[in-house]
């Protein structure tokens, strides 16, 4: 009987020792409450991320970044974030188990279209990329060059100057 207890205890120890310590990161991505419902070009919106270490081991060298994808038919492409977002990455040296890291991602809407946004995570311990759920949003276009502004200037100024030219020429004769 004692042998079985000892063997059973040993088995438990072995099983416990054989099971790796779980390292687990999760991220959420939600639009900030102040975002407009139907944003337009030029608007500034933001998204909030909550990064949590749900594992039992600390995560070291944590990096979180956003990726933006345009999904308009025929224009599917990743978007260069240079002018869209100043926040290129959020880092943390260590994220302890159970610790949560909050981050906000401000985004300036440069071009009209349909977009998908996702936050990606990686650390020294993770073997696979961890992503947040994907958020979609649509940016409405805004006419930046309005013919109602351009045409009067483009025709009006040369005509005005031309009129002055003719007037001065006739005045001098």
């Amino acid at each position, binding site marked *: 009987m004692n042998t079985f207890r000892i063997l059973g205890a040993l088995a438990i120890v072995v099983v416990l020792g054989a099971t790796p310590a779980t390292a687990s990161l999760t991220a959420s991505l939600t639009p900030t409450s102040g975002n407009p419902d139907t944003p337009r*070009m*030029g608007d500034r919106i933001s998204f909030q991320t909550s990064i949590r270490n749900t594992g039992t081991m600390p995560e070291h060298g944590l990096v979180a970044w956003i990726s933006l994808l345009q999904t308009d038919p025929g224009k599917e492409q990743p978007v260069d974030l240079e*002018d869209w977002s100043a926040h290129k990455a959020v880092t943390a040296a260590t994220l302890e188990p159970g610790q949560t890291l909050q981050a906000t991602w401000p985004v*300036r*809407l*440069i*071009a*009209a279209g349909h977009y998908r946004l996702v936050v990606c995570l990686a650390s020294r311990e993770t073997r696979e990329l961890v992503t947040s759920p994907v958020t979609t949003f649509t940016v409405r*276009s*805004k*006419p*930046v*060059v*309005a*013919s109602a*502004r*351009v*045409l009067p*200037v*483009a*025709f009006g*100024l*040369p005509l005005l*100057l*031309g009129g*002055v*030219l003719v007037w*001065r*020429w006739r005045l*001098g004769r």
Partner: protein
Amino acid sequence: MNSSILIARKEAGTLLRSPRGLAWLVAMAVALSIFCLLLVSDTELSLLDNAQVVYDMAGLITALGALLAVILGVDALAGERDRGSLPPLLLTPVAPESILLGKLGGIVIVWAVMFVFALPYLWAVGSTGQNLMDGVAVLALFGSPVVIGFGCLALGLGARLDSSRSGLLTSLVLLLLAASPLIFGPSLRQTTVGMAFDTINPFAAAINAYDAVIIDSATVLSQWGHALVILVCLALFVLFARNAFQHLLRSGGGL
């Protein structure tokens, strides 16, 4: 009225009151109008594209302003010498420094008028885009010394060379060289020679400042390095114009 101001007003009048000068202004307005009209049909510009348009417009205004300043600068001394209207001016009791200051003042007035005429164009293409006011500020602060500098350079070259024609040709070649960054793509500008040239070229300094402020949303103050290049070149061109004018006086003033 101060003699320099009188002469500056006379110089400005050559552009603003003579049919030939007004024709130049009309030509410049037409060039800006064509650029604007090219954009009207394009309704899919992003903010970045629109910023690029404002940047291009600012560069075009600076180039046209410098071209006008070169034409006026050469005419101010060399043209008047060739036409015979310079000696009577030199034979008044006005000090030579005041005459030169008046000539420079004329270029400043003409640029100011052209700048005011250019504002509606900038507003038309950029009012709903980004950084328009910063763009106007950087055009005023950085474009003005570039334009005036080239006017001084042309003034000096016209005084130094034998005829107004050679002065104008030389000035135009130098202006074209300086404005070449507008034409060359980034790859050529990134070569060793391109970068070295960019470092000393006031025109390149101005358009780099426009790029940073209008497209990259940098502050105007952060462009102090470009401002330094522009101001050093302006000082050198003014000195050159002064020395060339003194040389012209020593050789008889065109009499």
